């Protein structure tokens, strides 16, 4: 059932590891068939190292089995790359490789975003549990009470309270000045909004400048047509030209304006 080579872990020490690597190097050099078996033996002999390291990362929100698995990948890489000639112990060499593999796993899983969320969630649950337990216990709960209630460690509760402050939600109606009197200002009062008047003003200034490219006649037509809302026919009468001509002039003037304004932006 278990196809792992039998390794008596008690008897694995630094000397034996060195010896195994020496034999592995020879077997590999000669292309000997037992190279694979020697490699397997080394992997199994160091699974405890992987486990030891994986356990250290277990409170970061990933299953221990997964961490051991990726850690083992790191171990295998370390075994394949290890060179006795370097004169360092294998554990010295393997630890950063295994830790690196575990850390990369967290990174690939978008862990940097995940943990704040874990804390944030815990922070919210701590606040809820705080209210609930105060009622059921009849007094303010201890950190231990909270930890038991939320199935978290006491350290996590403290951490969620401490670091969680950055993630607290504030009501927009939170007063930021004044003493609760009618002059009190809330956060919402300080939030900026797009001021349509200001945007209008800008457009107006741009338009005014753009008008400078128009001829006198074009300006008159646009003014009458859009500021005074006079029909093209009426304008034609006033200027003593045909309505068709007014239409053409208006078209041309608008095109000029559009061109200038688009250039500006």
């Amino acid at each position, binding site marked *: 059932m278990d196809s792992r080579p039998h390794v008596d872990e008690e008897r694995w020490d630094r000397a034996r590891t060195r010896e195994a690597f020496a034999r592995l190097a020879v077997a590999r050099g000669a292309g000997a068939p037992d190279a694979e078996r020697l490699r397997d033996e080394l992997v199994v002999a160091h699974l405890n190292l992987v486990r030891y390291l994986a356990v250290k990362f277990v409170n970061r929100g990933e299953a221990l089995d997964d961490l051991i698995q990726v850690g083992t990948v790191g171990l295998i890489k370390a075994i394949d790359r290890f060179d006795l000639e370097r004169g360092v*112990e294998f*554990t010295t060499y393997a630890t950063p490789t295994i830790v690196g593999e575990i*850390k990369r796993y967290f*990174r690939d899983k978008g862990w940097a975003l995940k*943990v704040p969320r874990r804390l944030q969630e815990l922070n919210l649950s701590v606040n809820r549990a705080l209210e609930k337990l105060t009622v059921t216990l009849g007094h303010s709960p201890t950190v231990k009470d909270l930890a038991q209630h939320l199935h978290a460690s006491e*350290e996590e509760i*403290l*951490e969620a309270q401490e*670091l969680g402050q950055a993630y607290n939600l504030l009501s927009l109606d939170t007063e930021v000045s004044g003493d609760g009197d009618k002059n009190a200002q809330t956060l919402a009062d300080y939030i900026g909004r797009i001021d349509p008047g200001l945007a209008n003003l800008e457009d107006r200034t741009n338009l005014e400048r753009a008008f400078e490219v128009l001829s006198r006649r074009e300006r008159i037509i646009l003014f009458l047509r859009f500021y005074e809302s006079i029909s093209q026919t009426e304008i034609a009468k006033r200027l003593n030209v045909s309505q068709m001509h007014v239409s053409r002039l208006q078209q041309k003037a608008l095109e000029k304006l559009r061109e200038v304004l688009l250039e500006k932006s």
Partner: protein
Amino acid sequence: MNLPEPRSEHLGTVELRIPSKPEWVAVARLAVAAIANRLPFSVEEIEDLKLAIAEACTICIQQGGSGQSIDVICDVETTHVRVDVRDHRYRERAEGGAPRRPAVTAVEGEGLGIFLIQALTDELEYGVDPQLGTQLVMTKRVGA
């Protein structure tokens, strides 16, 4: 590639003395997390530092026996935090005017924790000696 060291400014020093017992290690972890949180460390970097501190305290406890104390001294700079974890023997020797740092001695069995700290921090100096005491000085840089 030799980039000039970014200018660093000392922000403050925090000293913490905890009993040399496993149940107090969490206090050191939390304190260091709160301290590191004052610098623009990522959450992952803070977790790494916490783990390194816990390992360092554990080594002190294993080597120094219980019933004594461990000092955790954090020097906070704008670009990094330097944490000096030392046991009571180091303190007593330092008070007696002995050399600042114990000679580096490898103690059988201490190895894995040291390697782990090395893998998690940017710099580690340490001395572990049954007579002279235990001291681990680790540096974690922001965004390294």
